[in-house]
């Protein structure tokens, strides 16, 4: 033992009241809440927060939402998909307004996270609102130096039901034009006339076309509904990905 001061214990994860400072409609069923969080310690791309709602009778409901904004952003942005008749998301989606407060705690998570310093090709696969944490990674990458970006080329495969359900569509189109980024979108229900992207569920043939090959050094992040995530992760292992380099985050249907 030395006389050195003991290290300060890590901060507890406290509930804080965040203030809604902006609202952005993304698609007919999703909107982004821009939150100002007092004493926000900063976050990593891919992390999430827990949101807690307390009814007047004391009943509490709690859900996790991925952070859409990059670490470089001062505010915390959450993109909420409104799930009909659910307990939490309709309130966040339809009721909460600029100036309102909402209880959150975070940032949370150290597994489904990515930093541009990690280098190496990146494969991102999203289903529906599973794009949200992957968007934080893309935005984080876009904030980094050109040389850093060159070391982390990205392929994004994004599965949405229809063109109207593509979250961040304009931003993705812009990002797709930047060096080292390829965006592949597949629509599983309806596609508009002239659609040139994929038109089916993610399958092995699609992953063989989109995924980096060989898989060596590639990091894969897969996020979306449980069946999509599990099918995709298994297919990636089938085509040669090391399971340890395929990180997954399952989004639930409870909202």
């Amino acid at each position: 033992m030395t006389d050195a001061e003991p290290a300060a214990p890590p901060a507890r994860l406290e509930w804080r009241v965040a203030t809604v400072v902006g609202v952005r409609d993304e698609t007919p069923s999703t909107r982004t809440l821009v939150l100002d969080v007092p004493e926000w310690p900063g976050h990593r791309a891919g992390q999430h927060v827990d949101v807690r709602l307390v009814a007047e009778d004391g009943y509490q409901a709690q859900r996790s939402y991925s952070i859409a904004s990059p670490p470089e952003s001062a505010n915390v942005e959450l993109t909420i998909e409104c799930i009909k008749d659910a307990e939490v998301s309709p309130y966040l989606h339809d009721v909460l307004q600029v100036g309102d407060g909402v209880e959150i705690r975070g940032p949370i998570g150290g597994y489904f996270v990515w930093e541009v310093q990690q280098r190496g090709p990146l494969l991102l696969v999203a289903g529906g609102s599973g794009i949200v944490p992957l968007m934080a990674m893309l935005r984080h990458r876009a904030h980094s130096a050109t040389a850093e970006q060159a070391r982390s080329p990205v392929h994004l495969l994004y599965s949405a039901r229809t063109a109207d359900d593509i979250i961040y569509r304009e931003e993705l189109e812009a990002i797709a034009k930047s060096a080292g980024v390829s965006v592949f979108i597949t629509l599983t229900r309806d596609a508009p006339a002239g659609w040139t992207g994929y038109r089916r569920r993610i399958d092995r043939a699609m992953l063989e076309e989109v995924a980096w090959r060989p898989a060596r050094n590639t990091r894969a992040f897969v996020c979306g509904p449980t069946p999509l995530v599990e099918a995709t992760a298994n297919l990636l292992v089938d085509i040669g990905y090391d399971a340890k380099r395929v990180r997954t985050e399952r989004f639930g249907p409870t909202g």
Partner: protein
Amino acid sequence: MQTEDMRLDGNAAGGPLRELFAMDMTAAMATCSGCGTARAVGALLEYGHEMGLILRCPHCNMPVLRMVRTPRFLRLDVTGLSFIAIDEPVS
């Protein structure tokens, strides 16, 4: 209820586990006492319910960690866990 649709993963347990642990646990490696498989806590399968959560081994389905909250206590059952290994942060 433990249907496939309700299955999430250990990422969703990150917040609740921070009520007990001083650091993030989703990146910690958990070794299942049933089959010996080591997985990041974030990669375990999570079955949530009103009173808490269960994390299961994706290899053998053993409940590795159960966290239950009642009005009177918080109970952490780690019968299915051999050990947890946490990377030391490089600073």
